[in-house]
C-alpha cells in the first residue's frame, strides 16, 4: 500500500476543533501524522494548497437498491457516486428486494461491497421481518453479521406494540433506530405538503401531522425503552420543535435533513414537475427557516444524501405516478455548502460536523475524525470552484434531480478511503477497491 502526503491543505477536523494549514501523512490505511511541514517522504504527494482537507463524509441514508432494483443503482455504481461526492462511508437502506432482514442478505451486501465498492458500504436492516410491520427481525444476529443500524425504509410500522417490542428487544443489542416517521392514515394518497400548493394543483396534501404524530409516538417509545433514536429527513418546523423538546428532556434522539429540504420550497412545484416530489414533502418558507435554525443551533445533527435513484420510467412520468425522491450523493455537499456556508448560515466547521463526526457518533463508530491513528478516510474540497449540475455525467446510474442546470459552489476534488485514493480531480480511480 502506497504512502500519501497531503501538503499545505486547510485541515479541518470538527471533532478536535483543529483548523489550520497542515500536512497529513498517510501510511498503512491510517493517518500516521498531522502537522506543519512534515518532511517524511511519501510515494504519492497531493498538493492541497487552496483546498480544504476534511474527514471523509459519512452518509446515514442512501438507497443503493441492491439487491433487487439494480436498474436504478447497485452497490458498485452507488459507491462511485458516493466517492465522487466526497463520501467515504455510506449506510445503505434495507428496503431492497428481498429486504435485509436476515444475516444472509447482510453477508451478500458485504461481499458485493468488498468486490465492487470503492468506499465503505455499511448495511442496515429492517426492524421487522419482510418489512411487514408485525414480527421483529433477528436483531442480535443482524448486529453480529455487521448491521450498523435498524431502519423502516419508508414503510411506517403502524402497530405501536410492534415498535415497542422491537425497541425493548434491542435494549440488549443497542442498535440505533433510524426511522422515517409517517402516519399512513394521515398521509394516504398525498403527493405534496398540505397547503396552498396542494389546493392550487388539485392534488391531495400531506398534513404536517402525518410526520409529527408518528414522530411523537416513536420518541415516547424510544424514551421508555432506552433506545438510541435517529429521525430521518426532518421536513417541518413542528417536527424540529419535537426534536428540541426531546433533546431538552435528555432523550437520546438525533435527526438529519436532506439538502433538498432546505433548498426547495413546496411552492417551487409550479407545474407538476415530478422531480420535486419528495418524502416528506417539500415545506414552506417557515419550515425551511426552521431547518436552517435547527442546523445552526444543533437541533439537527446530520445532513444526509437520502440518495433515491429512479429510472426514467419511474420518475419522468405523470406527477401522480412518479416516485418520490432524488439522487443526492454527488450534490449533497455542494448544495449544502452553496446554501449554508456561502450564505453564511453555518461556518465550514459547523457544516463539516454534520457530514463527519456527528454521523459517526450516531453510528457509534470510530470514524469521521482527522487525527493521528484514525482511519485514513479523507476528502479534499475545492471551495472556490463553480460547477453546473449535469446529472447525465454523474457516476450514479440514475439522473433524477431537480438541480439539473443549477450552478453550485464547492466540490470534493479527491477522496481517500482507507489510505487509498479512490477519486481524484472528479475522476474515480481505475481499480480503486480498498476493501478487496
Amino acid at each position, binding site marked *: 500500500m502506497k504512502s500519501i502526503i497531503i501538503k499545505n491543505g486547510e485541515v479541518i477536523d470538527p471533532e478536535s476543533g483543529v483548523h489550520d494549514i497542515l500536512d497529513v501523512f498517510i501510511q498503512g490505511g491510517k493517518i500516521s501524522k498531522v502537522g506543519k511541514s512534515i518532511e517524511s517522504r511519501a510515494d504519492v504527494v497531493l498538493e492541497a494548497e487552496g483546498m480544504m482537507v476534511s474527514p471523509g463524509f459519512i452518509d446515514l441514508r442512501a438507497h443503493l437498491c441492491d439487491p433487487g432494483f439494480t436498474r436504478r443503482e447497485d452497490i458498485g455504481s452507488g459507491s462511485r457516486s458516493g466517492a465522487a461526492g466526497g463520501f467515504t462511508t455510506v449506510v445503505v437502506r434495507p428496503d431492497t428486494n428481498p429486504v435485509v432482514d436476515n444475516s444472509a442478505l447482510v453477508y451478500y451486501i458485504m461481499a458485493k461491497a468488498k468486490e465492487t465498492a470503492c468506499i465503505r458500504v455499511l448495511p442496515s436492516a429492517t426492524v421487522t421481518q419482510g418489512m411487514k410491520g408485525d414480527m421483529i427481525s433477528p436483531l442480535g444476529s443482524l448486529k453480529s453479521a455487521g448491521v450498523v443500524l435498524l431502519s423502516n425504509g419508508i414503510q411506517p410500522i403502524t402497530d405501536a406494540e410492534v415498535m415497542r417490542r422491537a425497541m425493548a428487544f434491542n435494549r440488549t443489542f443497542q442498535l440505533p433506530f433510524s426511522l422515517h416517521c409517517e402516519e399512513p392514515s394521515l398521509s394516504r394518497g398525498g403527493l405534496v405538503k398540505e397547503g*396552498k400548493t396542494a389546493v*392550487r394543483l388539485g392534488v391531495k396534501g400531506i398534513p404536517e401531522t402525518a410526520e409529527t404524530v408518528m414522530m411523537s409516538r416513536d420518541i415516547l417509545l424510544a424514551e421508555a425503552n432506552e433506545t438510541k433514536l435517529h429521525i430521518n429527513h426532518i421536513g417541518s418546523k413542528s417536527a424540529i420543535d419535537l426534536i428540541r423538546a426531546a433533546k431538552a428532556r435528555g432523550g437520546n434522539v438525533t435527526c438529519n435533513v436532506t439538502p433538498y429540504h432546505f433548498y426547495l420550497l413546496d411552492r417551487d412545484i409550479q407545474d*407538476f414537475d415530478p422531480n420535486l416530489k419528495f418524502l416528506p414533502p417539500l415545506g414552506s418558507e417557515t419550515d425551511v427557516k426552521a431547518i436552517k435554525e435547527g442546523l445552526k443551533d444543533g437541533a439537527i445533527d446530520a445532513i444526509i444524501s437520502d440518495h433515491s435513484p429512479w429510472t426514467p420510467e419511474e420518475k419522468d412520468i405523470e406527477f401522480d405516478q412518479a416516485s418520490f425522491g432524488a439522487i443526492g450523493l454527488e450534490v449533497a455537499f455542494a448544495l449544502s455548502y452553496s446554501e449554508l456556508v456561502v450564505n453564511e448560515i453555518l461556518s465550514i466547521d459547523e457544516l463539516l460536523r454534520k457530514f463527519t463526526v456527528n454521523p459517526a457518533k450516531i453510528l457509534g463508530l470510530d470514524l469521521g475524525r482527522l487525527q493521528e491513528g484514525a482511519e485514513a478516510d479523507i476528502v479534499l474540497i475545492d471551495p472556490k470552484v463553480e460547477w453546473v449540475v449535469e446529472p447525465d455525467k454523474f457516476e450514479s446510474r440514475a439522473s433524477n434531480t431537480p438541480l439539473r442546470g443549477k450552478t453550485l459552489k464547492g466540490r470534493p476534488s479527491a477522496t481517500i478511503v482507507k489510505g487509498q485514493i479512490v477519486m481524484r480531480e472528479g475522476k474515480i480511480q481505475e481499480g480503486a477497491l480498498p476493501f478487496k
Partner: protein
Amino acid sequence: MKWERKDLIGLEDVSPEEIWHILEVAKGFKKKLVEKDVKKIATFENKNFVTLFYQASTRTRFSFEIAAKNLGLNVMNFSSATTSVSKGESLYDTVKTLEAMGVDIFAIRHGMSGSARYIAEHTPAHVLNAGDGVHEHPTQSLLDMFTIWESKGKLDGVKVVLVGDHDHNRSSRSNTWALSKMGAEVVLCGPRTLVSDEYTDLGGRFVGDVEEALKEADVIYTFRIQQERQEPGLVPSLGEYSRFYGINEERLRFAKPDVVVLHPAPMIRGSEITSAVADGSHSLVFEMVTNGVAVRMALIYLLLGGES
C-alpha cells in the same frame, strides 16, 4: 385580440382579455345554435378530433362531440375500458399513437391532476382539458361564465356563491380563479372538511353558513358531493349535507329576487338541490348545456386558428 395558445389546460394563467375573447366568439356560435344555423360554419373538414376520456362523462363528452361535428371535424371517441389501456398502455404511448394517426386536437379527461398539461407538453397536437383530476375543468367554467354573462349582462361585481365540495371539485377551482379575475364577487360555502383553509388563496372568501353566504346573491352555483373522488367519511350523510348546504326554495329567499341557479350536473335531486329549484324559474341548468356546446365550439375554433 390575436389568439396564441396551442392548448387550453386551465384558467389559472389565462387573462381576462382572453376569457372575454372566448366568450365573444361563443356568443356568435350560440346565436347560430339557437337559429339552427350551424351547417354553414363547418370549416375544418380535414381535421381530426379525439375525445380521450379516462373517466365517465355524458354531458361533457357529447358536448365536445357535437361542438366538433358542428365545425365539420372528424370526431372519434376513446374510452379507456375498450382500448389498449386495459392492456397496460401508458397515457404517453396512447397519445403518441393517436398523434401518429393524424389527430389534430384532443379533448382529454383524466383522473390525475396535471394529466392534461403532461399530454400538452408531449404532443404537437392541440389539447383541450376536459377535466384533470381535481385540478381544472376550464370549459365548464367558461360555459358557467357565459351563462352568468348572458343572464346578468356582466361579470364584474356579480355576486356568485359556490356551494359544495370545493376540495374535490375541478370546476370549483377553475371558477374560483376565473370569476375572481373577471371581477365577480366570489363566495365559497361548504362543509369545512371539503374546503381547505388555503382554498381562498385561489380567490373569493369563505362563509360557512349557507344562508349567510346566499345573502344578496346574484348567482348560486351548487354542485354535487364528489363521492367518487373523495375518501368516505368526510360528510356524515347526504341527509346531513342536504340539511345544512342543500339549495331549496326557502333558501333562495336569502338571495336577490332575480337570482339564477346554476348546477354543472349530474344533479343528485333532493341532496344538494331540490327538484323544485332545479326545475323552477330561477334555474338555468339546461340553458347551460346549450351554452356548453357554443363555448366548446369557440375553443376548438380558436385553437385551430379559425380567425387566421
